[in-house]
């Protein structure tokens, strides 16, 4: 598996997908901060040209980490079946499980590196271009990233499991959305009728991020500010990793290529 991971890093660093992904997101972040900066220059009374407002985008939508990780995994591995490289890996003595683990590790490392880069660009450009204090907003955002990182890894693992299982990217996307968003929202709605379901739904990231996190000009109220809230995010993430890893192994163990 180590050799497979090494070969994947070689391949990824010699193709343009990862660079395009980072370039596009960096450009997006800079356009956001630069746009608000430019707007503030022309409209002096604008109340949104500050670090607090800009950082609230990510702090209030931590599920962006889940989506970005999944998109990156799709970008890196979705062509493997079509190009016939997955069948080669299997034919050359890689078990499907090792292949799955290898892809998870490679995707996670690449996603982590991209996240570090983009977060740095996001914070630095916000501080340089916009007004207002950086603290405690930077700290809240970084705490949020740390607390939600385990579930971001879980969401990425789920994407890899589906990429290896399904042939079409569209199906991968739909299946992923169903598990990460649709099922939790059904559980959440059912929770109004059944108390047990409400308790289960409260542990699902889509639900707790929607109901227990707010960030904006009116203030920040973040679940992870309290140790219990941070623990909830981490526990949900770890459970997600275990569940999605098991799912990935199970569905791909005897998958015909």
């Amino acid at each position: 598996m180590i050799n497979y991971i090494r070969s994947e890093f070689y391949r990824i660093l010699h193709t343009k997908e990862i660079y395009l992904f980072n370039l596009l997101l960096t450009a997006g972040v800079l356009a956001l901060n630069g746009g608000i900066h430019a707007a503030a220059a022309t409209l002096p009374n604008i109340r949104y040209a500050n670090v607090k407002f800009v950082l609230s985008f990510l702090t209030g939508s931590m599920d962006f980490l889940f989506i970005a990780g999944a998109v990156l995994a799709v970008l890196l591995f979705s062509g493997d079946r079509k190009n016939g490289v997955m069948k080669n890996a299997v034919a050359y003595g890689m078990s499907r499980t090792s292949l799955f683990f290898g892809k998870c590790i490679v995707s996670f490392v690449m996603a982590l590196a991209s996240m570090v880069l983009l977060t740095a660009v996001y914070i630095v450009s916000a501080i340089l271009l916009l007004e207002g204090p950086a603290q405690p907003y930077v700290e809240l955002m970084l705490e949020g990233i740390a607390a939600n990182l385990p579930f971001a890894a879980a969401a990425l693992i789920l994407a890899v499991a589906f990429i290896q299982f399904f042939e079409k990217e569209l199906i991968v996307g739909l299946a992923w959305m169903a598990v990460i968003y649709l099922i939790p929202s059904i559980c959440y709605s059912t929770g109004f009728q059944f108390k047990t379901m409400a308790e289960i739904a409260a542990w699902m990231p889509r639900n707790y991020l929607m109901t227990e996190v707010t960030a904006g000009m009116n203030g920040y109220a973040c679940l992870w500010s309290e140790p219990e809230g941070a623990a909830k995010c981490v526990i949900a993430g770890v459970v997600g990793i275990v569940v999605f890893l098991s799912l990935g192994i199970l569905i791909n163990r005897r998958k015909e290529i």
Partner: protein
Amino acid sequence: MKEIIAEAGSLTKRYGRITALNNVNLRVRRGEILGLVGDNGSGKSTFLKLLAGQIFPTEGEVRLFGAGTERELVRQRRRVGTMIEAPGFYPQLTVERNLEYYRIQKGIPGKEQVRDILRQIGLYERRKTYGKQLSLGMKQRLGLGIALMGEPELLLLDEPINGLDPSGIIEMRETLHRLNLEKNITIILSSHILTELEQLADEYCFLDRGRLLKQISAGELAEECGSCIEICVSDPELFAVSLEKQFPGQKYQVLPGQRLRISGECAEPERYSSLASQSGITVSALSVKKRTLEEYYMELKKGGRES
């Protein structure tokens, strides 16, 4: 006796109600070049995919280098090179980088093997070309190069000469021959071009609609395909009776158009014509023929379907 390195025991593969491979038993010995002969849908690719672990048998088992359990098979497949259906590579990587990718994946030290293989497959001058820019024939060559990475002991090649131009076919044939002779690499290959297989294989497997019709060595095949006599007579049934009396054990086949094909060890052609005249049968034509692999396969297929 040479070591058996690939073996199929009662191997069956079904896709729903379709049986792609039906109770196939065969053995491949080290150093052999086994040609898989069959029409589309005869089970050639299915058989190769089962050996390569890309699909799983519904019934029966595959053994590679003596290993039969799933875990052992995965390990033994590191000794196998494959090119099944379309060659697998990254179109956005150059030829050289594709080979480098597989070199790293197979844990082969040093970069010399990449250059050696580039020369072997005749793509050294094209090493900086992206995979997506290659012609069909060059893609086949790259596929072979990837299969050769790591000096495999067994090569599984599905239609390796597909898309190659005449000189490419000759080069591919020579490369496979050389690998077999110099490195004792066992090769299992399928091809629609039977004349090409004839020049490569020393063992044949004839498949039809998922069934193995026959496994036969090149020597035995030559014997079976060897000279036969076709005789056109006025009364084929009576001639057959006379033939059985005069030449007990002689193989023959009654063909349409009052013809008989006499195969196996044949006597002088004149002896058959004199036998006919002794029996009061008129001979309108007599010719000595040699069956091609294609003819042999078609007859085998017909026989298999009738039975």
